[in-house]
């Protein structure tokens, strides 16, 4: 208030924030990779510091401890998945088509980034079982929003809050079987789980079968189809 910001020639041309940000990201990437290689429990600050090529002092400037760093890494991973899902569908998609596309994009992201997949689906649950709740708070409203953009609550066929936990178990199982690269195999099941609460069993089955054939089609019944 009342202060004028005076630009001086001494101001760096690249805002300091960018350097800070990339350093922070390097630390986060190091945490993700180290967790994938040796689990969170076995990861030490020394591992992260050496992977990120930073000093211990720098680490502690950014994060209070290992757990805070892990939480930041988890946040980053969840945002990556959210944006993959968000970019995969558009407003013109019908809700079932949007769910199919978003689910396919999430599975594709997980399959192409195994370390990220492991952190979100395995490590996070081992570190803090409360994360399932956290994921659910992100996912349930997102799914609900697809069906009822307004305030109207859709009629439910199953509890949508359960969808995430179930999907997580199936994905975890697939990763445990070392089939992370083939996570797309789960698409029909994930589509079914995400659609069952809102669209009911019959429609969820129909969409799951569609997803099995081609994840990208919009699945709308067109005149002359049947």
């Amino acid at each position: 208030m009342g202060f004028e910001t005076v630009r001086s020639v001494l101001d760096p041309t690249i805002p300091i924030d960018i350097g800070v940000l990339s350093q922070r990201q390097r630390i986060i990437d190091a945490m993700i990779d180290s967790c994938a290689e040796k689990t969170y429990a076995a990861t030490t600050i020394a591992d992260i510091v050496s992977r990120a090529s930073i000093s211990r002092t720098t680490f502690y400037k950014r994060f209070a401890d290992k757990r805070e760093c892990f939480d930041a890494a988890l946040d980053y991973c969840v945002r990556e998945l959210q944006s993959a899902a968000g970019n995969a569908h558009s407003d013109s998609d019908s809700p079932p088509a949007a769910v199919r596309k978003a689910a396919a994009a999430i599975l594709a992201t997980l399959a192409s980034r195994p370390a990220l997949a492991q952190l979100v689906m395995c490590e996070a649950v081992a570190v803090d079982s409360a994360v399932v709740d956290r994921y659910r708070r992100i996912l349930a409203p997102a799914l609900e929003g697809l069906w009822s953009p307004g305030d109207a609550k859709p009629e439910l066929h199953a509890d949508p809050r359960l969808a995430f936990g179930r999907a997580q178990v199936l994905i975890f199982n697939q990763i445990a079987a070392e089939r992370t690269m083939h996570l797309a195999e789960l698409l029909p099941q994930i589509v079914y789980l995400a659609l069952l609460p809102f669209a009911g069993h019959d429609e969820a089955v129909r969409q799951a079968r569609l997803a099995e054939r081609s994840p990208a089609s919009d699945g709308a019944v067109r005149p002359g189809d049947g």
Partner: protein
Amino acid sequence: MLSEAPLPTVRSDPVTDSPKDLRRWRLPRGRHGLPRELVARSQRERLLAAVVRVSAEKGYEATSVADILDEAGVGRESFYELFEDKQDCMLAAHAILVDDLEATVMVAYEEPGLPWVDRVRNAVEAMLDWFAGDPAAAKVTVVELAAIGAVSRVRFQEDFRRFTKLMDGGLDNSEPAPDLPQATSLAIGAALARVYEEVVRGRTTELPRLLPELTYELLVPFLGEAVAREEEQRAAKIVASR
């Protein structure tokens, strides 16, 4: 010393060669003149019971071998004669518990002469009772296993496959084919996710109340909503009459 967990109501068999409740296997203190093999075996059982109890109470990661020895009343040397390390002990205990759960569910599910939907409901009931009857075992089998690290994933996947195989094996030819080819894995996943959540929330002993909901959720992918709703209502009556 940790407080005693409530004794299970389900698995109250007397001590046998393969004790179902590990906690019941205790030797008298002092000189007992029992053969060496039996002593070692009893020590093993006590250590297995101890790792379950301590891990359930304070978390697997925070549990030390010293804690386990303390709880079991067994010496360090004996521990390392029987187990390589803490993880080895935990995995051995986990295997015994999951075997017991599988056997319990199988007996309920494979009861001859009953329609498939009834066998599914009985299996779900047996599973919920098993977990509710021993909260420490529930915590260790579904929550603490993940803390072991990469090995736990292999174990999880093996267990998951055991239960999908069990369910598939009991599928009845008289029922229509499931609407979805992946119905079994959806059903096992649903049951597991639900039990996990309730255990994490500390509501393990209330699990049997979920019988109607879980019956519905397991049957939907196979039979659709209408049949699953009817079965949910039947299960609700059974719970109410208990």
